[in-house]
């Protein structure tokens, strides 16, 4: 079946695209998902899966597995050996005590306070962002309810929220801890996918963002096979090797997509894109309000993360290995990126699961100049050195690769940095945070929208619900 007959086309078969597609399908829509990549990535998905999605799409009975590594992280110590932190708060405290008794004493309270704040974010993330401008009664009620939710957490939580969100993760951690290894491995989560160092304001928010969905005392997001489970879930058709652009009808509405390589047009009255906002809308920008286009071109999405794999000839002796020995180490790694260079000594984290080792490297800034082989060799060497492996065993994709291969704007995997000016009602573009676009019938559902990257499927679910709500009214 092709051509006529689709109610909706979803661009992108990543987690958000598939979640949106399945929610639409469950509401009776005939949905086609088009994906430019030939094969689904075998890598695990990093990020919290809101329980609503697991429940509503019945993922538990479809083989969903969420890895629960214990210890959840290991970090080399300067004097040799490793600091290992466990899912059990007390057991972690014991491990920390060997480095700093004072830090160990503060660990349980820190875990509790951070957990409470992450809980506030979770509540915000499973619904569309609050609309602060709206004068609708329903919206005001929702805002008031949100306010009450926060107030019920008590005085300390309100103060923490106001004080910590704009802070730098370095200031936050310095308030609590003294040990560099501990602060380094925690602080690393505060700079994920940001072209900022741990001394920059707003990184404490990014730290909490990546704590969402984890139990108290675990500061790395869960990893799961949700992408594979959603791919196998019946109800939507997925067409691969199908790079798509949005097609507008003569009335200016979205009319479907054009499968570029196949010169084939798929018609549908509803197009939902999980691609990044800029690349989704760039080709039709001539039809848009210049103010909107200006705002779109101002979205900061400066890719700084390289990802890839490490091939070891022996089984990994870790589940997560973090090489970020101190906050200053992270900041210096950022300094290089600030002036357009790869970090000479990058922050490297490796995740081992089912015999596969995925690697996260930061900072590898996007650059529109061609990356030379020399650059690649230098990067592989520095990553290999960090992990104690031969450079030849490291395979990496850089932000440049992603932009070239997949049209991902500036190679930013979150489709827009999670800075305080680009979250909630400011994401992806101020005034257009509710998954709509200026083009009727075209919606966004990727990590470029609220609540952003690192949360598996929340944007897709919020977008689908928003689309369905609109159709009803």
């Amino acid at each position, binding site marked *: 079946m092709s051509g006529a007959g689709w109610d909706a086309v979803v661009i992108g078969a990543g987690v958000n695209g598939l979640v949106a597609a399945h929610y639409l399908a469950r509401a009776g829509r005939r949905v086609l998902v088009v994906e430019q990549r030939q094969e689904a990535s075998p890598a695990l998905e990093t990020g919290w899966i809101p329980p609503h999605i697991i429940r509503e799409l019945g993922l538990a009975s479809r083989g969903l597995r969420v890895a629960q590594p214990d210890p959840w992280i290991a970090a080399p110590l300067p004097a040799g050996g490793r600091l290992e932190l466990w899912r059990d708060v007390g057991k972690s405290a014991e491990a920390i005590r060997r480095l700093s008794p004072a830090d160990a004493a503060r660990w349980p309270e820190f875990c509790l306070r951070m957990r409470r704040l992450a809980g506030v974010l979770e509540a915000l993330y499973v619904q569309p962002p609050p609309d602060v401008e709206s004068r609708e009664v329903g919206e005001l009620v929702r805002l008031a309810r949100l306010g009450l939710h926060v107030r019920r957490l008590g005085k300390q939580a309100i103060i923490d929220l106001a004080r910590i969100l704009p802070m730098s993760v370095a200031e936050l951690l310095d308030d609590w801890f003294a040990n560099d290894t501990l602060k380094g491995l925690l602080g690393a989560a505060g700079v994920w996918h940001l072209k900022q160092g741990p001394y920059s*304001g707003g990184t404490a928010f990014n730290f909490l963002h990546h704590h969402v969905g984890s139990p108290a005392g675990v500061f790395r997001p869960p990893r799961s096979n949700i992408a594979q489970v959603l791919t196998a879930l019946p109800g939507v058709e997925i067409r691969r090797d199908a790079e798509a652009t949005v097609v507008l009808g003569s009335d200016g509405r979205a009319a479907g997509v054009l499968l570029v390589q196949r010169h084939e047009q798929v018609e549908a009255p509803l197009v939902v894109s999980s691609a990044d906002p800029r690349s989704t809308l760039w080709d039709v920008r001539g039809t848009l309000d210049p103010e909107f286009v200006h705002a779109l071109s101002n979205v900061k999405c400066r890719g700084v993360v390289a990802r890839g794999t490490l091939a070891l000839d022996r089984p990994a002796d870790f589940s997560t290995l973090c090489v970020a020995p101190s906050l200053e180490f992270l900041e210096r790694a950022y300094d290089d990126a600030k002036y357009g260079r790869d970090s000479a000594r990058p922050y490297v984290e490796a995740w081992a699961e089912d015999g596969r080792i995925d690697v996260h490297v930061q900072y590898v800034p996007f650059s529109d100049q061609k990356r030379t082989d020399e650059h690649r060799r230098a990067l592989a060497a520095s990553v290999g050195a960090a992990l104690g492996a031969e450079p030849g065993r490291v395979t990496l994709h850089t932000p440049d690769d992603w932009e070239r291969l997949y049209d991902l704007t500036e190679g930013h995997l979150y489709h827009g940095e999670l800075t305080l000016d680009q979250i909630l009602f400011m994401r992806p573009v101020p005034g257009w945070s509710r998954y709509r676009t200026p083009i009727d019938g075209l919606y966004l559902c990727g990590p470029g929208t609220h609540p952003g990257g690192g949360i598996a499927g929340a944007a897709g679910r919020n977008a689908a619900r928003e689309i369905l709500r609109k159709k009803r009214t």
Partner: protein
Amino acid sequence: MTSPIRYDAIVIGGGHNGLVHAAYLARAGKKVLVLERRPRVGGAAVTEEVFPGFKFSMFSYVVSLLRPEIIRDLSLPRHGLHILPLESTLTPMENGDYLAAWGDHDETRRELCRHSPRDAEAYDEYGRLMHHMAHAVKPILGMVPPDPTSLNPRDLFALLRLGRHFRGLGGERLHALVKLMTMSSADLLDEWFETDVLKATKAASGIIGTFLGPRSPGTAYVLLHHYMGELDGVFRAWGFAKGGTGSVSEAIAAAAREFGAEIRCDATVARVLVKGGRATGVALQNGDEISAPVVVSSLDPRRTFLQLLEGTALPEEFVADIRRFKFRGSSGKVNLALDALPNFTCMPGVGRHHRGAVSISPSLDYVERAYDDAKYGEFSRRPYMDIVFPSVIDPGMAPPGKHVMSIFVQYAPYHVNGGWTDAKRDAFGDAVIDTVEQFAPGFKSLILHRQVLTPADIERITGLSEGNIFAGELALHQLFFLRPAPGWAKFRTPVRGFYQCGSGTHPGGGIMGASGRLAALAVLGDGR
């Protein structure tokens, strides 16, 4: 010895906020005593004849934010306040070119056009937006911050009103405000302009007094300050007080005295006397005790609570918050006596550019690299500098034919590696002078005398902790109801009868006087 006079209130510290505070209390009929540690009032807003015949605004050197209601209420012009406009800013570039902003709008536009017609176009629109934003923020400067954790109907009502105020701005301006409050100045300016030197010069004004670089989030909102002063039509963006900033303090002191306040200099307060959880007066370093039912500190939060109240039991959480309050002084000052005005390569000769500011901020990377040095505990080898020549606008500041030059320098971290020593101070001064020399060859030979002030010197002389010129960093998490500590942002303290009125309270920063005034209103309100 006990003082025979009965005072209604004692104000500790005769800086501009302490003086404003005293003036307002005295104006309401209170018998007020101001105690100042140094031989003259003013705190960091003082004029001193550092070298014979050469007068300097030693620390704070420009005025822009002094609240118009204070100027009015205290009739400051009648007491000698006279602001001379600083109209231009010249930024020398490393390639020998320059960027200039003149007092005349059309001329500035033509100059910008020379660099980028697109930027010249955007400049007016940017100015309009900033003007609107300044309007949006202005009411906040004049309000007592409500406590969002309180269930008191007054707080709830104030919060609600605040919410309505922001919603009333409408989408576009609200979004712009969120961006201003959260972005880095470099990122915000990138959205508007393409000329690097323009962005660098504007961004530099966003880092003054902070320990952040132009690419650090949280620096954008300081850009607003430039537009605040203009709002009230009292004076232009930045001004220079005739006679130096000390004359601002003197004018406020004169107003306070006229209302009946007593000001005592060379009077160091050792501690605040507390009995049964209530302030009863102060003890001076010389052993004298003076009692009053109300004691107000204009010192920064660290010295107010950890020094003046040493030994007094305070809530543990509160003390932890005050200890956590960040100072991290990041700026220094170099004051020079000159034989003649320097000759800048980019604009040879003596000209009207000497009547304005000269900004050493040739590129964003230049300013960012200056920050990189500081981040790791060194002073900037090539610092950002804001230079003015007060004697050109106000000839009384120097002997005939000679000049004074004021250089505000960033970054000079308080916590410099190895600590500040005489040798390090000299090295810092040399770095400043060598950098100016690069843009104005021959400048060194014009220097008759030099005074170099590091953050450690600023702390030693003015008492400002860690030499922070704002009495506590103006970072988002240290503003409004969090300044200086959550739950204690309304000028009251855990000790009854003891208040705070310095720049370490809301709204803080600059020669604004708003803290002193708002605190006075709080004290008077409690007295009723």
